[in-house]
């Protein structure tokens, strides 16, 4: 039998607002535990939540780019349960009347065709704090994350593979980052995913019983957990067994899913309307205002890069990975670089620097204009490509202006008499290397070239120096 795997996703994305969902604490990570809290987010007696309007605007933006129908009136509800990292004893969420219904995530199938995963709804809610369980058996509570603003995006079930499920989340993350709704950083936990998996004998059969896999925090775990869980279900069914509706845990190391709790044991959240908050009213004009302030979406930028600027689609993708990348790339063009050299230097240098430094482009200290000056010096043959790279690296390391380093380091020297002078010295100091080359072993060429560059303090024009070196060894 050819089984079909059906996947539904519930994705929690922390919204990239300045402050939390219901108080004025900053939405920040990395602070000392319990140093970013106030009476409201820690549920002190008498403190009341107040809706962060910036979070609502952020949520509207998400709903617009996911093609949802935004509800004019929506409401918050309380989800009641006891847990130490939930200081109020309830989470403020939207259960009965979420602010956005419908919509879809565009994603790519394994065969590279485009498809859409329909959404059920999106709602706003607040995050809980964190419980830290130490190996000595003690538990500590950090409430810094309490009441951070979240979007929960719930999809319909759709037949797809593990790779495609991960592709959906990747595509969603890309879009949310692009429009500035979320940082989408899975490692930091500001994008988390629950996956519902079921299987059926073929695509036309009724949906099978699903199991839920909680808190997947990487693309690999999304992909692998779907693959492993669907395989498990198929094995059970082929042996004549049945699937129970339950929540399962994904063990990343062992690559197995384990039962956590059955449907009967799932908590009763006793939802009811949050009496401390008014109904949220989103008017058409609020939606229009957000729509107008949205940046060009990735699909439009892709067309510009590939069709208008003639970049290869492979080159365009890393530039499109984030909107900020695109903006930096545009600034390189603005500073006078050609599309090809902007693309080469952006991908070859800027992205490598960011990767080395584990930074995002908005934290990158070099300005596009300064990079362009160095690139132009290379293109005009005033310095070597290597020198150009070196200058940028040095500017990063020493936190200096690349132009300053460029002017100090002097320009490339093509003057033949100067080159001959450096080469003569190098040849006379390295007779063995010269002999090896003469006897047909070209390996020491690189070494000699390095010595020439060193002798010239990096200023020798590399191509001219290389040619001259070759010639002088042959004539020696």
């Amino acid at each position, binding site marked *: 039998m050819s089984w079909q795997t059906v996947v539904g996703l519930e994705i929690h994305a922390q919204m990239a607002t300045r402050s939390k969902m219901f108080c004025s604490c900053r939405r920040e990570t990395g602070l000392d535990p319990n140093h970013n809290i106030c*009476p409201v987010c*820690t*549920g*002190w*007696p*008498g*403190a*009341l*939540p*107040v*809706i962060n309007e910036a979070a609502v605007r952020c949520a509207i933006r998400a709903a617009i780019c996911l093609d949802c129908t935004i509800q004019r009136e929506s409401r918050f509800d*309380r989800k*009641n349960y*006891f847990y*130490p990292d939930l*200081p*109020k*004893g*309830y989470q403020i969420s939207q259960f009965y009347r979420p602010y956005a219904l419908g919509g879809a995530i565009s994603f790519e199938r394994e065969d590279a065709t485009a498809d859409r995963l329909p959404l059920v709804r999106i709602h706003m809610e607040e995050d809980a704090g964190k419980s830290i369980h130490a190996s000595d058996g003690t538990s500590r*509570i950090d409430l810094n994350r309490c009441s951070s603003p979240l979007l929960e995006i719930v999809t319909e079930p759709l037949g797809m593979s593990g790779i495609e499920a991960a592709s959906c989340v990747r595509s969603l993350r890309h879009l949310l980052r692009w429009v500035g709704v979320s940082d989408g950083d899975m490692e930091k936990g500001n994008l988390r995913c629950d996956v519902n998996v079921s299987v059926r004998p073929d695509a036309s059969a009724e949906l099978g019983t699903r199991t839920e896999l909680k808190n997947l925090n990487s693309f690999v775990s999304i992909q692998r957990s779907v693959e492993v869980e669907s395989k498990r279900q198929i094995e059970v069914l082929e042996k004549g067994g049945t699937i129970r509706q339950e929540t399962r845990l994904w063990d990343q190391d062992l690559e197995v899913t384990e039962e956590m709790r059955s449907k009967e044991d799932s908590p*009763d959240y*006793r*939802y*009811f309307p949050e*009496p*401390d*908050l*008014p109904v949220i009213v989103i008017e058409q004009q609020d939606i229009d205002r957000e729509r107008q302030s949205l940046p060009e979406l990735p699909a439009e930028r892709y067309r510009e890069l590939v069709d208008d600027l003639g970049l290869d689609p492979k080159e365009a993708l890393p530039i499109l990975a984030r909107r900020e990348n695109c903006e930096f790339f545009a600034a390189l063009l603005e500073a006078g670089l050609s599309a090809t050299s902007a693309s080469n230097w952006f991908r070859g240098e800027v992205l490598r620097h960011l990767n080395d430094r584990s930074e995002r482009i908005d934290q990158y200290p070099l300005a596009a204009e300064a990079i362009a000056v160095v690139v132009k010096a290379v293109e005009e043959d005033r310095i070597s490509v290597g020198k150009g790279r070196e200058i940028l690296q040095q500017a990063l390391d020493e936190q200096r202006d690349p132009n300053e380093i460029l002017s100090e380091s002097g320009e490339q020297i093509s003057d033949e008499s100067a080159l001959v002078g450096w080469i003569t010295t190098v040849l006379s100091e390295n007779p063995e290397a010269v002999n090896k080359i003469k006897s047909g072993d070209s390996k020491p060429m690189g070494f000699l070239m390095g010595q020439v560059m060193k002798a010239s303090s990096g200023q020798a024009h590399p191509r001219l120096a290389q040619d001259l070196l070759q010639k002088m060894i042959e004539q020696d």
Partner: protein
Amino acid sequence: MSSPQQFPPREATVQEALQWISEGRCSSHDLVSRYLDFLETEGKELGAIVETFEAEALAAAKLSDKRREQGELLGPLDGIPFTAKMNITTAVGTTDASSAMLVGFEAGEDATVVRRLLGGGAVLVGKTSCDEFAMGATNETSCHGVVANPWDRSRVPGGSSGGAAALAGSHGWAFHLGSDTGGSIRLPAAFCSATGLKPTWGRVSRSGLIAFGSSLDQIGPIARDASDCALVLDCIEGADPLDSTSLHQLDESRDPIEKVALVSEGFGSGIDDSIREAVRAAAQEMEQHGVEVTEVSLPQLHAANACYQVIATAEASSNLARYDGIHVGSRVAADDLQLLYEKSRRAGFGVEVRRRILLGTFVLSAGYRDSYYSRAQAVRDLIREGVDHALEQVDALLLPVSPFAPFPIGERIDDPIALYACDILTVTANLAGVPALALPCGFDEAGLPIGMQLMGARGSDHRLLQFGQQWQQWTAHHRELPVGGAS
């Protein structure tokens, strides 16, 4: 140096006391000092006052006297003593909602209402006892002990703002902040012969009020008369950025109330004869002064108490979840988390609070929610519509506050059904979100106070208070003091 001190008569209202001060017959410092003496003696004997802030209050009164000298008064209540109920946060002292769970809890911040009053120069003198988490109609569930009714110390003062009302009923010069979820301002005001207002829901910020039933809770004044209540409301009402359910637009209408309707259901069986007669007599008195009095039936009232019990307990079960022994509230150590929760909550909460939490958890739980919570919400809509409809025909609805007179301490405390019956006439205003004013309207044969209440349309708080002032010019019930209370 010291001249023999003079003080306003004990029953004097805030405005009369202010008259004395402005005429220089006594200072705010004298008044506050003397009032503190009253709190320390009779206030404590009644069990009404839990904490007093002598040093802070006397210093504040001194500053007020200085401001008065320099003609720089902060507001019409400058120099006047007031108390806050134990479930209203204050920067000074503790805020324990009269619960063992929170004993010693220092909120560190003033509730919006307190901040506004202090900003207007009023002097915070202490915190009053109340039923635990404001759940009760008798003030017998306070962890600080039973509060006595000043009119008969063997009887309950009503609850849950019993401490506040016991003080207002036995002494003037000051005003008191209470809270009302299902009658907690009006019932004790009626039992103690004080005047109390449950404002329109949203008119007064709830920021700093320890929540019981959030969609029903309102902070309001308890004082000697309606005109004092109006002064207090003027100071505490209005939008608050810390409470997003506080109203941004207040109905400022002061149109006189000309048409009043008796609510038939408030005069049926189950209501004491003496109370029915006293309120009907009050209606006749109004008629004699030109008020048009009619009668209206609000059959929804029969369902009001059941509806209230479901909604109030549901919200309470959630509002009180935060007292879990982990963050706020007393902790009983245990080996695992579940036990820690159970032990802490069992030790911290009294019987009545636990009963309501269980009830509220039940009515929201899967399988029962539709038959209880959802139905109660639907009934609440009907009640609101019924009240709104009735108030389209008349300016105010008139009915007794309590079906019976203050009863002996201990009589109903073990019988929740009998206890909840205290609320049958008051909960409607909370469910409908409308203002309701409790006014003294006489005494029964045993000399126990009787109160009536006027319910108005949402936003008509000041119209009700203005009518209350008129009523109190026609009558003198509110001037009475309990025997033995004279100074």
